[in-house]
Structures are given as C-alpha cells and as structure tokens.
C-alpha cells in the first residue's frame, strides 16, 4: 500500500498498519557510541571496496579481467555496516555484485584479485571469476550469478546454525529485483515458521538492471513484504553506515536470541551502470544519479567523523588512502605474478572426494 493512500485512509478513519521503520536519525547518535577504532575500520573497508572495484573496472576495460564485472560502488555502507555487526563464524551469502560483501566479511584482497584475473591462486582456482568468489573459512558462502539464487542456500545455513545452537546467524544479501522472485518468498516463509536466525538484507538500489523498482513492485518498500510473513521489516537509509550498522545489530540480537528472521531494506544506489562493460546501456536519469552522488556513503561518513571532534584528521585520511592503494597494487601484482590454472584443472573438482 502506498503511504499517501495509507495516510488518506487513516485520515478517513480506516485502520491501516505500515511496517515498522527504523529512523535514520539513529545513525549519528549511534556514531557517538561506536569506538574510534571500529569507525576507522569501517571507513577503511568502505574505501577498500571502492578502490578495489575502481581497479577491477579499469583492468576489465583493459582486457586483463574477463567476462563480466558488477561494481558495488555507492552501496558500500550496506555490506560494511551489516558485517560490522557479525562475528567471524556468522555466515553471509552474496549476489552477482559481490566484491563488497567479500571484503566486508574479511576476504583476502590478493586471492580476490587473482580470481578476477583467472589465476590458480584465486579463491576458486580461477574457475569462478568475479561472480563466484567464496571464502568458506570466513563464512562467505559465495557470490551468485542467479538473481535470488543464494537466498535459500543461506536460509539452510541458518537452519544449520539453529541445529548447532551456538548463537550463530546467517545474513542474506540480495537486491530489490530478487525480492520479486520465488526464493525470497519461499525462504522467508520457512525461516519465519522455523524461527531461523537469518537476517535478510535487501540492497534496494532502485533499479533492476534498467528497470526501475517502481515498475516491478506495487508496494513502495520491499520491507512491507515482511508483514506477509510475520517478521519485522525495517527500512534503513542504506547510505548511512551507522544507521545500517544499528539496524543490523538489532536484527542480529533478535536472531541470536532465538526470535527468528528480520528483513532489512537498505535504500541505496549504484553509482555505476549494471556492469562495467563499455557498451552497457544505462537508462537511469542523470539528475537521479547526480542526486545520489551527493549522498555518497563514504563522503557522508567522513563528514560524520569530522563533525565529531578529533575523530579523523586530513593526514590520517591521506595515510589511509595511501595504504589502501598500496594494498590494491599489491593484490594486482600478486594476481599478475600468479600462474593461470593448468589444463588438467578443467576436469578437477567436479566431484569432491
């Protein structure tokens, strides 16, 4: 139900309920509580995602990275804010736009870049590429080339966590497009019924490739769909790092204490086209893109840090940028120095021993 319609109906005395909301104001309030180290680490992660992908895009266009690359640039606050609320043994699953989730969960940049370069030192021994990076040791169950493809898989990891009884949670990252697909509805229904410790994080970047979300959904917010499954559904400003983190912490606490799943919708925007290919069509209005560039999550968080006296200096920022760029350079050097997989690798790992 559209909010204007709802307000109108309420004005007429009709009883309607809108899903519970988290107010984005919480972000800055929350910032005062988070430790300086944690805040700087989150900033570093967001910047690392951005620099990694800027380099991946450049190397893709130069022909050193093959196939397809989907950039997460502009959406970094979601992955970083959510993963900041997690422990190492909590699990996540990602999408085709997965570099950010990998980095936020603690993946190794060298092995990521080597995978993009198709080398045997990559996370998938050069068999996966950009769309299939996984690191099971850190609970990252993989990027996935099928929209909505990972939603049921991470729900099963949530069932495993419930069996284990150790308080672990599972986080499902997916886009607004996936929320129109069957696995979203089937999985949330069963997770709600079984009270599985899963946090469903919808990254609503407002466009499914070149189709605006408003053309494919009759509700204004994906979070409204939570109501249909009897679980909490919250809308969060996905470009406000601390607001995302606060919502994630609340959802994680909810899941760890056995209360079941939560749906968090993070409103965000990709700064770039759907993929990095040179001829990728992009139907989004320039004015809309420009408006969202003004809401850049990294700039916004830096401004928040600056407002808090003594949180970060220009020198510290410059040093952080230099360190990150060096890490990216090192990752590219590692990838380039690594061998391509040998031909016999083609028939290996079809089956496990």
């Amino acid at each position, binding site marked *: 139900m559209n909010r204007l319609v709802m307000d109108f109906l309420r004005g007429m005395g009709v009883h309607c309920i809108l899903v519970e909301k988290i107010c984005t104001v919480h972000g800055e309030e929350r910032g005062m509580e988070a430790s300086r180290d944690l805040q700087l680490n989150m900033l570093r992660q967001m910047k690392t995602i951005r620099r990694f992908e800027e380099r991946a895009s450049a190397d893709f266009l130069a022909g050193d990275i093959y196939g397809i690359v989907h950039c997460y640039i502009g959406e970094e606050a979601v992955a970083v804010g959510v993963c900041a609320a997690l422990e190492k043994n909590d699990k996540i699953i990602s999408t085709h736009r997965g570099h950010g989730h990998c980095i936020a969960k603690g993946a190794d940049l060298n092995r990521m870049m080597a995978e993009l370069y198709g080398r045997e030192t990559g*996370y998938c021994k050069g*068999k996966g590429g950009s769309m299939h990076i996984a690191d099971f040791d850190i609970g990252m*169950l993989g990027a996935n080339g099928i929209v909505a493809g990972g939603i*049921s898989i991470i729900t099963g990891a949530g069932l495993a966590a419930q*069996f284990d009884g150790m308080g672990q949670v599972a986080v499902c990252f997916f886009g607004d497009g996936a929320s129109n697909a069957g*696995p979203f509805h089937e999985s949330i229904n*069963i997770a709600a*019924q079984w009270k599985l410790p899963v946090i469903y994080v919808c990254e609503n970047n407002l466009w499914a490739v070149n189709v605006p979300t408003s053309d494919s959904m009759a509700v204004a917010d994906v979070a409204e769909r939570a109501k249909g499954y009897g679980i909490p559904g919250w809308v969060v400003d996905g470009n406000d790092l601390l607001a995302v983190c606060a919502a994630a912490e609340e959802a994680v606490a909810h899941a760890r204490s056995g209360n079941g799943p939560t749906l968090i919708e993070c409103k965000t925007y990709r700064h770039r086209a759907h993929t990095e290919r040179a001829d990728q069509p992009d139907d989004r209005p320039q004015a809309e893109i420009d408006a969202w560039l003004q809401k850049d999550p990294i700039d916004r968080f830096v401004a928040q840090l600056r407002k808090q006296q003594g949180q970060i200096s220009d020198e510290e920022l410059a040093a952080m940028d230099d360190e990150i760029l060096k890490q990216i350079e090192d990752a590219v050097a590692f990838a380039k120095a690594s061998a391509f997989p040998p031909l016999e690798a083609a028939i290996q790992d079809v*089956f*496990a021993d």
Partner: protein
Amino acid sequence: MRTITYLDAITEAIAEEMRRDEKIFHMSTEAPPKLLAEFGPERVRQTPITESALTGMAIGAAASGYRPIVDWRLVTFSFVAMDQIVNQAAKIHYMFGGQAKFPILFRTTVGGGTRRAAQHSQSPYSMFMNLAGLKQVLPSTPFDVKGLLKTAIRDNNPVVAFESGRLGSLKGQVPDEDFTIPFGKADVKREGRDVTVVALAWLVHEALAAADILEDEGVSVEIIDPRSLVPMDADAIRTSVRKTGRLVIADEAGPTAGASAEIAALVTEDAGTFKAMKAAVSRVCALQVPIPYAPHLEDHVFPNRHGIIKAVRAIMSEG
C-alpha cells in the same frame, strides 16, 4: 538375509545412516512416519510445499557441516527447484574451486503406470545426466536401493536417487548386516550368451520375464542393470556386448537424448565393442509423448516385456 520391500529398504537405509551420523537430517513436504517416530520432528522435518527452498537450504546446510536428505517426492516436483539443482547444487563445488563439500541426498520417485497422467508420470533422469556435478542412481531391487542409498548418504557430493514408483512394493532379499554398493558398478541380473539387454529400473524386471520366454525359444539373454547412471559402468556394458554381439536397451523414459542414447553411444563409440557387434543397437523405450491418462493409452505408450521380446527376436534375425 530377510525379505523386505523396496520402500522398506529405503526407510531402513536412511534410518541406519541417521543412527550412525547425527549430522544427517531429512526434509520433505510429508515426513515419512517411521523416520519421524524414531528421530523426531527436528531431524525429520515436515516442510511447506517449497521444493526450491528445500533444495537450496540443503546446499546451505551441507556447506555448514550437515548431511541433508531432501525428498522431492515425485520427480515432477523437482522441476520447480531446477535453479537450485542446475545452477547451484551441480556447480557449486567446481565453481568455488572445490573449497567446500556438499554432501546431499536428493530422493525422488520416477516412472509411470499409476494412471496419474503426464505431470505425475515422468522419468527425466537423462536431463539430470546432462549436468556435470550430480551423481545419480536408479536402483531396481530392495538390495540395490538400500546399498546405493547408504553409499549416497555417505558420499560427499550431491546425489540424486531416482526411486522407481512401480517397484515400491517389490520384495527382495536384503542382508541383515550393514552393507553398501559402490557407484559405477553395474550388476549382471542374468547371465546369457546371445544378446545383452541393458535395462533400467522397472524394465529390469520386465527384461527378466522376457528372458524366461526367450530362453524357451532357445535365445540366451544377458541382463545388465547399470544401477548408477552417473557414474555409468561403461566397462561392464561393453564387456557384455563384446560377448553377445547384440544390444537391446530397455528404458521407461522416452528415447530422445535419453539414458538409452547415452548407453548406445558408450557401446558404439568403443571400437573394440563396435567390431564385435553383429546387429544394430535396438532401443525399447516409451513413446516420445507426455504420458496419457486412459489406461489402455498409458499401457500402449510404455515399453514392457513384450516389446523387449519383439526387439530381441528382431535383432536375432538380423544376424
């Protein structure tokens, strides 16, 4: 040895493995009563009718240290889970460079003869055989189904067990003690000299009946049951055909790009076997149509012992 039914053998296999390994759990839209009674609703989960979600959840649970069993029930219902089967389960080990193991048993019932029409009478295993990354078994006896299911549950890969709907009440001898049957090992169900019949699932029993009749005519039939479709025991089939020089393939599925076509190719592309052949390969399969409802039409569409007898007579007259 005891005599039990095919369905009881399945339940025994799962129950014995669940007793052995507490990481095994079972999910299906209807919980099997015997398993539910012994292991309770936590490990024997009755689920919403969401085969796609169950299939994906099995993958996630397997990646997290569990050994799920998912019963899709009729293979018909596996089709709503195809993304999870084809794009996820079959590829996930390879695509991620072998990082994690996905020990999952997918159970499903195939075949017709139940007067339930097209959507509930299917044998689409060749669609699955075409995917890399899924092991597949198609047992024809209580002994085979028990031994193969136990192997499937202990395997560290996704395995699809195609259980023949026609054979549920079939009785057969099963050992008292623990046993398993390795994948990729065909079974000679009957030894013979003149013609090899490679038969699948229910057609094994039709072939056995046909062989009795053909024996009276002086034709000695060897019956090979591959038992596992992936991996397929090409050696055993080729060895038999090199001996008899003749091959008939009997399958309840249609012929087009079917398991029967794969078996024919495995035989004829092997030069030594091809040279030993005295006649062209003959296939006894269902007509390539959706399965009709009316009993006389359904019976007409499916292959049976009479079709096998006809094919063997024809191939014998060829040379």
